[in-house]
Protein backbone atom coordinates (compact mmCIF):
# COMPACT_ATOMS: atom_id res chain seq x y z
CA UNK A 1 0.00 0.00 0.00
CA UNK A 2 2.75 2.40 0.94
CA UNK A 3 4.71 1.78 -2.25
CA UNK A 4 1.73 3.01 -4.24
CA UNK A 5 1.47 6.05 -1.97
CA UNK A 6 5.16 6.84 -2.35
CA UNK A 7 4.92 6.55 -6.09
CA UNK A 8 1.89 8.81 -6.20
CA UNK A 9 3.57 11.22 -3.82
CA UNK A 10 6.77 11.56 -5.84
CA UNK A 11 4.84 11.75 -9.07
CA UNK A 12 2.37 14.32 -7.85
CA UNK A 13 5.15 16.29 -6.20
CA UNK A 14 7.36 16.61 -9.24
CA UNK A 15 4.42 17.07 -11.60
CA UNK A 16 2.35 19.27 -9.29
CA UNK A 17 0.84 22.21 -11.09
CA UNK A 18 -0.37 24.30 -8.18
CA UNK A 19 0.30 24.80 -4.50
CA UNK A 20 -2.69 22.76 -3.44
CA UNK A 21 -1.48 19.68 -5.32
CA UNK A 22 2.01 20.26 -4.01
CA UNK A 23 0.87 20.40 -0.39
CA UNK A 24 -1.13 17.16 -0.82
CA UNK A 25 1.86 15.39 -2.39
CA UNK A 26 4.16 16.60 0.37
CA UNK A 27 1.81 15.06 2.93
CA UNK A 28 2.03 11.64 1.25
CA UNK A 29 5.80 11.64 1.05
CA UNK A 30 6.06 12.67 4.70
CA UNK A 31 3.79 9.75 5.59
CA UNK A 32 6.08 7.30 3.81
CA UNK A 33 9.18 8.62 5.55
CA UNK A 34 7.31 8.20 8.85
CA UNK A 35 7.16 4.46 8.11
CA UNK A 36 10.93 4.40 7.67
CA UNK A 37 11.29 6.38 10.90
CA UNK A 38 9.34 3.68 12.73
CA UNK A 39 11.54 0.99 11.15
CA UNK A 40 14.61 2.90 12.31
CA UNK A 41 13.33 3.12 15.90
CA UNK A 42 12.67 -0.64 15.99
CA UNK A 43 15.78 -1.75 14.15
CA UNK A 44 18.30 0.52 15.91
CA UNK A 45 17.07 -0.41 19.42
CA UNK A 46 17.91 3.09 20.64
CA UNK A 47 21.43 3.04 19.16
CA UNK A 48 22.85 5.13 16.31
CA UNK A 49 22.29 3.00 13.22
CA UNK A 50 19.71 0.68 11.68
CA UNK A 51 22.27 -2.04 12.45
CA UNK A 52 22.51 -0.95 16.12
CA UNK A 53 25.93 0.28 17.30
CA UNK A 54 27.53 -0.17 13.89
CA UNK A 55 26.60 0.32 10.24
CA UNK A 56 24.70 -2.70 8.89
CA UNK A 57 22.95 -3.89 5.77
CA UNK A 58 19.95 -1.57 6.14
CA UNK A 59 22.15 1.48 6.74
CA UNK A 60 24.00 0.67 3.52
CA UNK A 61 20.67 0.19 1.70
CA UNK A 62 19.50 3.62 2.91
CA UNK A 63 22.67 5.22 1.53
CA UNK A 64 20.96 5.21 -1.88
CA UNK A 65 18.04 7.21 -0.48
CA UNK A 66 19.97 10.31 0.61
CA UNK A 67 20.88 11.65 -2.84
CA UNK A 68 17.38 11.36 -4.40
CA UNK A 69 15.78 12.93 -1.29
CA UNK A 70 18.12 15.95 -1.59
CA UNK A 71 17.04 16.31 -5.22
CA UNK A 72 13.34 16.11 -4.33
CA UNK A 73 13.88 18.69 -1.57
CA UNK A 74 15.58 20.91 -4.10
CA UNK A 75 12.70 20.59 -6.58
CA UNK A 76 9.98 21.19 -4.02
CA UNK A 77 11.85 23.75 -1.88
CA UNK A 78 10.68 21.79 1.14
CA UNK A 79 12.35 19.57 3.77
CA UNK A 80 11.04 16.04 4.21
CA UNK A 81 13.59 14.76 6.70
CA UNK A 82 12.78 17.02 9.64
CA UNK A 83 13.30 17.11 13.39
CA UNK A 84 9.53 17.14 14.18
CA UNK A 85 8.47 14.25 11.94
CA UNK A 86 11.57 12.09 11.52
CA UNK A 87 13.84 12.83 14.51
CA UNK A 88 15.62 9.46 14.26
CA UNK A 89 16.26 9.63 10.52
CA UNK A 90 17.60 13.17 10.59
CA UNK A 91 20.17 12.26 13.24
CA UNK A 92 20.92 9.02 11.46
CA UNK A 93 21.62 10.90 8.22
CA UNK A 94 24.11 13.23 9.95
CA UNK A 95 25.83 10.31 11.74
CA UNK A 96 25.88 8.17 8.61
CA UNK A 97 27.27 10.88 6.32
CA UNK A 98 30.06 11.60 8.84
CA UNK A 99 31.10 7.92 9.21
CA UNK A 100 34.61 7.20 7.94
CA UNK A 101 33.35 4.39 5.67
CA UNK A 102 30.74 6.68 4.06
CA UNK A 103 32.15 10.22 3.89
CA UNK A 104 34.60 9.64 1.00
CA UNK A 105 31.87 8.24 -1.29
CA UNK A 106 28.73 10.15 -0.37
CA UNK A 107 28.23 13.42 -2.25
CA UNK A 108 27.18 16.38 -0.09
CA UNK A 109 23.79 18.05 -0.63
CA UNK A 110 25.64 20.92 -2.38
CA UNK A 111 27.39 18.49 -4.74
CA UNK A 112 24.11 16.75 -5.63
CA UNK A 113 22.41 20.11 -6.26
CA UNK A 114 25.27 21.18 -8.52
CA UNK A 115 25.06 17.92 -10.46
CA UNK A 116 21.31 18.33 -11.09
CA UNK A 117 21.85 21.90 -12.28
CA UNK A 118 24.51 20.66 -14.70
CA UNK A 119 22.15 17.95 -16.03
CA UNK A 120 19.37 20.51 -16.58
CA UNK A 121 21.77 22.82 -18.43
CA UNK A 122 23.07 19.99 -20.63
CA UNK A 123 19.50 18.95 -21.44
CA UNK A 124 18.60 22.54 -22.23
CA UNK A 125 21.59 22.93 -24.57
CA UNK A 126 20.66 19.73 -26.42
CA UNK A 127 17.03 20.86 -26.80
CA UNK A 128 17.95 24.36 -27.79
CA UNK A 129 20.34 23.16 -30.50
CA UNK A 130 17.75 20.79 -31.98
CA UNK A 131 15.25 23.62 -32.09
CA UNK A 132 17.59 26.02 -33.79
CA UNK A 133 18.35 23.48 -36.51
CA UNK A 134 14.62 22.77 -37.07
CA UNK A 135 13.87 26.45 -37.47
CA UNK A 136 16.52 26.78 -40.20
CA UNK A 137 14.49 24.39 -42.38
CA UNK A 138 11.31 26.38 -41.96
Amino acid sequence: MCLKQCFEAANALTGANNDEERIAATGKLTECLAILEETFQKSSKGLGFFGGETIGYLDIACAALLGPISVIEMFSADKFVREETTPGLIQWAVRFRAHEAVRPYMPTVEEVTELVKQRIEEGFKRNFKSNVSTSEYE
Partner: protein
Amino acid sequence: MAQNDTVKLIGCSDDPFSIRPRVALHLKSIKYEYLEEPDDDLGEKSQLLLKSNPIHKKTPVLIHGDLAICESLNIVQYLDEAWPSDPSILPSNAYDRASARFWAQYIDDKVKQFRDSLLHALFCFLSKFDTLVSVINKSV
Protein backbone atom coordinates in the same frame (compact mmCIF):
# COMPACT_ATOMS: atom_id res chain seq x y z
CA MET B 1 37.11 -17.70 -4.73
CA ALA B 2 40.20 -16.68 -2.83
CA GLN B 3 40.20 -13.48 -0.83
CA ASN B 4 43.53 -12.46 -2.36
CA ASP B 5 42.13 -12.40 -5.91
CA THR B 6 41.93 -8.93 -7.40
CA VAL B 7 38.80 -6.88 -6.69
CA LYS B 8 37.45 -4.17 -8.98
CA LEU B 9 34.30 -2.13 -8.78
CA ILE B 10 32.63 -0.47 -11.74
CA GLY B 11 30.65 2.45 -10.37
CA CYS B 12 29.25 5.79 -11.41
CA SER B 13 29.37 8.89 -9.23
CA ASP B 14 25.87 9.90 -10.45
CA ASP B 15 24.41 6.57 -9.40
CA PRO B 16 23.07 6.45 -5.82
CA PHE B 17 23.36 2.63 -5.86
CA SER B 18 27.14 2.68 -6.47
CA ILE B 19 27.71 4.09 -2.98
CA ARG B 20 26.52 0.88 -1.33
CA PRO B 21 29.31 -1.50 -2.39
CA ARG B 22 31.91 1.21 -1.75
CA VAL B 23 30.78 1.53 1.89
CA ALA B 24 30.80 -2.26 2.28
CA LEU B 25 34.29 -2.58 0.72
CA HIS B 26 35.53 0.12 3.11
CA LEU B 27 33.96 -1.55 6.17
CA LYS B 28 35.57 -4.88 5.23
CA SER B 29 38.96 -3.15 4.54
CA ILE B 30 39.11 -4.77 1.10
CA LYS B 31 41.64 -3.31 -1.33
CA TYR B 32 40.07 -2.70 -4.73
CA GLU B 33 40.38 -0.74 -7.91
CA TYR B 34 37.55 1.70 -8.61
CA LEU B 35 36.57 2.16 -12.25
CA GLU B 36 34.36 5.16 -12.98
CA GLU B 37 31.76 4.45 -15.68
CA PRO B 38 30.86 7.45 -17.84
CA ASP B 39 27.29 8.73 -17.39
CA ASP B 40 24.69 6.80 -19.44
CA ASP B 41 23.36 9.75 -21.43
CA LEU B 42 26.68 11.36 -22.20
CA GLY B 43 29.15 8.63 -23.02
CA GLU B 44 29.17 5.14 -24.42
CA LYS B 45 29.13 2.28 -21.96
CA SER B 46 32.49 0.67 -21.36
CA GLN B 47 33.22 -2.74 -22.87
CA LEU B 48 33.97 -4.01 -19.39
CA LEU B 49 30.48 -3.03 -18.15
CA LEU B 50 28.76 -4.55 -21.21
CA LYS B 51 30.75 -7.75 -20.75
CA SER B 52 30.29 -8.04 -16.99
CA ASN B 53 26.61 -7.05 -16.77
CA PRO B 54 25.15 -8.01 -20.17
CA ILE B 55 21.61 -8.34 -18.79
CA HIS B 56 21.07 -4.89 -17.26
CA LYS B 57 24.24 -3.05 -18.44
CA LYS B 58 24.10 -1.04 -15.21
CA THR B 59 26.45 -0.03 -12.45
CA PRO B 60 27.56 -1.08 -9.92
CA VAL B 61 29.35 -4.33 -10.82
CA LEU B 62 31.90 -6.06 -8.60
CA ILE B 63 34.62 -8.02 -10.37
CA HIS B 64 36.25 -10.55 -8.07
CA GLY B 65 39.05 -12.41 -9.89
CA ASP B 66 37.26 -13.29 -13.12
CA LEU B 67 33.74 -13.38 -11.65
CA ALA B 68 31.24 -10.54 -11.99
CA ILE B 69 28.60 -9.84 -9.34
CA CYS B 70 25.75 -7.42 -10.19
CA GLU B 71 23.10 -5.45 -8.27
CA SER B 72 24.21 -3.30 -5.36
CA LEU B 73 22.49 -5.14 -2.49
CA ASN B 74 23.54 -8.47 -3.96
CA ILE B 75 27.15 -7.23 -4.05
CA VAL B 76 26.97 -6.09 -0.40
CA GLN B 77 25.67 -9.51 0.62
CA TYR B 78 28.35 -11.26 -1.46
CA LEU B 79 31.11 -9.20 0.17
CA ASP B 80 29.76 -10.06 3.63
CA GLU B 81 29.78 -13.78 2.79
CA ALA B 82 33.08 -13.94 0.88
CA TRP B 83 34.89 -11.91 3.58
CA PRO B 84 33.28 -13.32 6.75
CA SER B 85 35.70 -11.55 9.12
CA ASP B 86 34.37 -8.69 11.31
CA PRO B 87 32.56 -6.39 11.01
CA SER B 88 29.62 -8.42 9.73
CA ILE B 89 27.17 -6.41 7.66
CA LEU B 90 24.05 -8.58 7.73
CA PRO B 91 22.54 -9.41 11.15
CA SER B 92 23.48 -12.82 12.61
CA ASN B 93 19.90 -13.72 13.59
CA ALA B 94 17.84 -15.26 10.74
CA TYR B 95 14.73 -13.20 11.49
CA ASP B 96 16.71 -9.94 11.74
CA ARG B 97 18.39 -10.82 8.44
CA ALA B 98 15.05 -11.44 6.73
CA SER B 99 13.68 -8.21 8.14
CA ALA B 100 16.72 -6.20 6.97
CA ARG B 101 16.36 -7.67 3.47
CA PHE B 102 12.63 -6.84 3.43
CA TRP B 103 13.25 -3.18 4.25
CA ALA B 104 16.23 -2.95 1.92
CA GLN B 105 13.96 -4.14 -0.92
CA TYR B 106 11.36 -1.55 0.12
CA ILE B 107 13.99 1.20 -0.05
CA ASP B 108 15.22 -0.03 -3.44
CA ASP B 109 11.74 0.13 -4.95
CA LYS B 110 11.25 3.62 -3.56
CA VAL B 111 14.58 5.01 -4.79
CA LYS B 112 13.85 3.68 -8.29
CA GLN B 113 10.39 5.28 -8.26
CA PHE B 114 11.79 8.59 -7.01
CA ARG B 115 14.44 8.55 -9.69
CA ASP B 116 11.97 7.72 -12.46
CA SER B 117 9.57 10.47 -11.45
CA LEU B 118 12.45 12.93 -11.19
CA LEU B 119 13.54 12.06 -14.70
CA HIS B 120 9.93 12.45 -15.81
CA ALA B 121 9.74 15.88 -14.16
CA LEU B 122 12.99 16.95 -15.82
CA PHE B 123 11.69 15.75 -19.15
CA CYS B 124 8.41 17.68 -18.70
CA PHE B 125 10.34 20.78 -17.69
CA LEU B 126 12.60 20.54 -20.74
CA SER B 127 9.78 19.85 -23.18
CA LYS B 128 7.90 22.90 -21.86
CA PHE B 129 11.08 24.88 -22.42
CA ASP B 130 11.32 23.36 -25.88
CA THR B 131 7.82 24.60 -26.77
CA LEU B 132 8.67 28.04 -25.47
CA VAL B 133 11.85 28.20 -27.57
CA SER B 134 9.98 27.16 -30.73
CA VAL B 135 7.24 29.75 -30.09
CA ILE B 136 9.95 32.42 -29.73
CA ASN B 137 11.71 31.21 -32.89
CA LYS B 138 8.49 31.41 -34.92
CA SER B 139 7.58 34.85 -33.66
CA VAL B 140 11.03 36.28 -34.51
